[in-house]
């Protein structure tokens, strides 16, 4: 099995993000299963960026700790990452700029000097293209055909014109040829072409997955104020807005954003917002407004470490309790948490149906690790999810029906609590939606009896909730000696860890909770009620999910593994913890 993790490190501002994705694309086109993860500080210039790209000939689910090829654009990269190098790892670096001593590294480490700056000078291109030379050099180390990268460059840069394409190809090719000539074969892990020819994979980012799900689901309005880690969602929607007829606006702040989205939804659009914890804090009062006026709304909340500005470009799962409880008093909401790219796409699509059918806010809670990472997904799988998805808009009254009604009531007390909704512009459907407690007409009303009826009506809607996917998913054998429990992006390193453990004949299973509100009590009890040992994994300090499970099921977990350092979980760490526990 081929399993290579490549890492490029350097100062922020040197296009490391772009080049990281390009490496992922190379691996993808070579037929590998790919996962990438980037670490960077909240700076535009300076500071250390590190982009990890892992490619393997078997399906992988996450990054790993050990680095097989290190591309060092500066000395700092070597200092920071030399501990991560695997046996026989290669280091690509410019020996004219960086001094290294082979004695610094474990025996067997391969040094691959490439004169990046010299090549740049020789072919007379901008210094910023060093990373393009580096990606070419990287390919030159593991594969003997430049074609794959040439094709990628054409696809990626063709919009910028022929000149840009040629310049990039030249730079990459120079790096490629230099390594082919001087070092090919030194690094032992060569990738033959199309090892995994069996399936066509796309390489997709988490933010793109959410946005594409929304587009497939018919979203036609968004008002998103930029914030890491949901900028990918915002930028994808904006990029596609003209083609797909999406009004995608940048509001003055998140309060405006969510209110615009509520207004658009009230007027009949399918609308969404996306933000992180800080922006969501501003939105809170309006989440209740959507619930109280029974206006459908999808909110994407991308978690990152807080409080306040916290660590803007890092990851965590510390907003779970926040999204579950945000807003004054009780109101129904649906909170769902995808664990990988395909789930992000699928849950995003379904979130809009749920919001429309139940006329309430749906929160898709994600995190930086999922939003800014990329992974391969089988083309057929995502495409068939898209094709089989049916848009459901719930009880919007038809123009004909509403025209006939003589006394339309927007908040009529119907059995399932879901009142038929009129849309402004419909004759006969005139109504007011208000944030005050109201009667069936929508008129403010503070009578105790009306209050109770309306409160119950709103909650009643959850009884007809159909998620469109399972509220929990179980992985692994039912009779395993340990059950891992988690939500959201921890799915990826957990599945990876399980894969590795299977090779050691250690069997554990995994319960992933997809729906956090309403909490799937029965499903959770039946999945873990009888488990001997349980290990709950979550990215926060206080065990927010652990407490939630205890609250709803009375079950206590026997062990936990919590991280709140801004870094994702690594399969190695999960395995170590499992072994401790077993």
């Amino acid at each position: 099995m081929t399993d290579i993790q490549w890492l490029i490190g350097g100062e922020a501002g040197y296009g490391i993000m772009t080049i990281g994705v390009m490496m992922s694309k190379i691996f993808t086109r070579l037929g590998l299963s790919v996962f990438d993860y980037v670490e960077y500080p909240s700076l535009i210039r300076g500071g250390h960026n590190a982009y990890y790209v892992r490619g393997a000939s078997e399906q992988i689910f996450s990054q790993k700790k050990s680095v097989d090829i290190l591309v060092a654009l500066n000395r700092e990269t070597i200092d920071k990452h030399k501990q991560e190098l695997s046996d026989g790892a290669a280091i690509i670096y410019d020996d004219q700029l960086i001094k290294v001593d082979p004695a610094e590294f474990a025996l067997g480490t391969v040094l691959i000097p490439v004169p990046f700056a010299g090549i740049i000078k020789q072919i007379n291109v901008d210094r910023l293209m060093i990373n393009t030379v580096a990606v070419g050099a990287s390919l030159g180390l593991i594969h003997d055909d430049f074609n794959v990268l040439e094709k990628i460059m054409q696809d990626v840069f063709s919009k910028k014109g022929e000149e840009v394409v040629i310049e990039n190809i030249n730079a990459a090719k120079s790096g490629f040829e230099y390594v082919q000539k001087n070092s090919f074969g030194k690094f032992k892990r060569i990738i033959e072409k199309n090892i995994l020819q069996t399936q066509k994979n796309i390489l997709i980012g988490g933010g793109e997955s959410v946005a594409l799900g929304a587009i497939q689901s018919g979203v036609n309005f968004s008002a998103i104020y930029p914030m890491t880690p949901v900028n990918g969602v915002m930028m994808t929607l904006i990029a596609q807005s003209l083609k797909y007829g999406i009004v995608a606006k940048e509001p003055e702040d998140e309060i405006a954003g969510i209110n615009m989205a509520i207004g658009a939804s009230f007027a009949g659009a399918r609308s969404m917002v996306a933000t992180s914890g800080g922006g969501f804090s501003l939105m809170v009062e309006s989440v209740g407004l959507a619930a109280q006026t029974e206006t459908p709304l999808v909110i994407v909340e991308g978690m990152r470490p807080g409080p306040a500005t916290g660590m803007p470009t890092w990851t965590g799962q510390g907003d779970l309790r926040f999204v579950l409880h945000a807003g004054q008093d009780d109101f129904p909401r649906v909170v769902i948490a995808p664990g990988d790219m395909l789930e992000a796409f699928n849950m995003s699509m379904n979130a809009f149906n749920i919001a429309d059918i139940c006329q309430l806010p749906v929160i898709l809670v994600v995190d930086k690790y999922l939003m800014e990472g990329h992974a391969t997904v089988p083309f057929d799988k995502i495409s068939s999810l898209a094709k089989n998805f049916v848009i459901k808009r719930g009880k919007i009254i038809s123009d004909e029906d509403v025209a006939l009604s003589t006394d339309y009531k927007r908040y009529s007390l119907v059995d399932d609590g879901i009142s038929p909704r009129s849309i402004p512009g419909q004759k006969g459907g005139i109504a007011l939606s208000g944030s005050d407690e109201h009667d069936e007409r929508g008129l403010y009303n503070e009578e105790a009896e009306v209050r109770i009826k309306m409160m119950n009506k709103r909650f009643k809607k959850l009884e007809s909730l159909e998620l469109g996917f399972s509220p929990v998913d179980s992985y692994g054998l039912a009779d395993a000696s340990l059950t891992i429990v988690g939500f959201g992006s921890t799915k990826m390193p957990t599945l990876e860890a399980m894969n590795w453990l299977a090779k050691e004949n250690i069997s554990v299973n995994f319960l992933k909770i997809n729906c956090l509100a309403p909490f799937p009590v029965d499903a959770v009890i039946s999945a873990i009620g009888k488990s001997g040992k349980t290990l709950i994994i979550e990215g926060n300090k206080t065990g927010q999910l652990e407490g939630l499970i205890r609250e709803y099921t009375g079950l206590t977990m026997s062990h936990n593994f919590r991280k709140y350092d801004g870094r994702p979980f690594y399969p190695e760490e999960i395995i170590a913890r499992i072994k401790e526990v077993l």
Partner: protein
Amino acid sequence: MTELKDLEITYDKPNWCPGCGDFGVWVSLKNAIVSLQLNPWEVVLVSGIGCSSKLPYWVKTYGFNGLHGRPMPIAEGIRLANSGLTVIVIGGDGDQYGEGANHLLHAARRNINLTLIVHNNQIYGLTTGQFSPTTDIGEKNKATPVPTVEAPVNPMSYSLAAGATFVARGFAGDNKQETQLVMEGIKHKGFSIIDTMQPCVTFNHKNTFSWFYERVYKVEDNGHDTSDKAQAYLIAEEWPLKRALMDGEKEKIATGILYKEERPTWEDGTPQISSMPLVKQSFGNRDITPLLEELL
């Protein structure tokens, strides 16, 4: 044919204090809708929270009563989703110049095609009389035990500076003029603000109807040219004063249209809705295959 009775609701009536200036704005707004022969089901009144913001409950059009300070972005969302609707925002001075002032700034510069009517009573009515962003300098009340030194917001200058393309002041004691201003505001293609002096008879014992009658004048009576922005600024700066009054000094309060210009609207700059309102366009039926193929 829209008549006044079509705008009346039968199951409730306004509960403002008798004599409140809100009644005048309510009557004028209904008159304007009738005079312009708008279909009630194609009008949406969007309000925040406050005495004034209750108004949409008592007009039989579509309505959305949102949060304190936030009706503007709700209204913007409605307009972008359905640019075929007439959208009117109703708010108090607290709602629009305090909690929602930032939204007002941005709506004005975007020139979204809607009309804002501010019931400016220079006080927080619903929360029983605390001072507001437009309370006169030097005033003292139960929330300000010492005379306030906070200079009042000048809604006219603020809107002009923000780029509003229709800036007017009305008075709840002159329904005829107010009706006319609301009609002009609705007809204006772009963002219109009608800051309406609306005496709160219960909590504001200074800025009463008679106080205003002694001070208001109509800019058109002076032959004001509404396309003259520099002049509009000068008039706007006449009142409210950024200083305490001198002995015997009386304010001059301009009413009428101070400024008007044509400029592309936010909707004009949104090609997705140039041929048809968003919600009238065919929904769903999307094929994302090309987007997926780009990711291969």
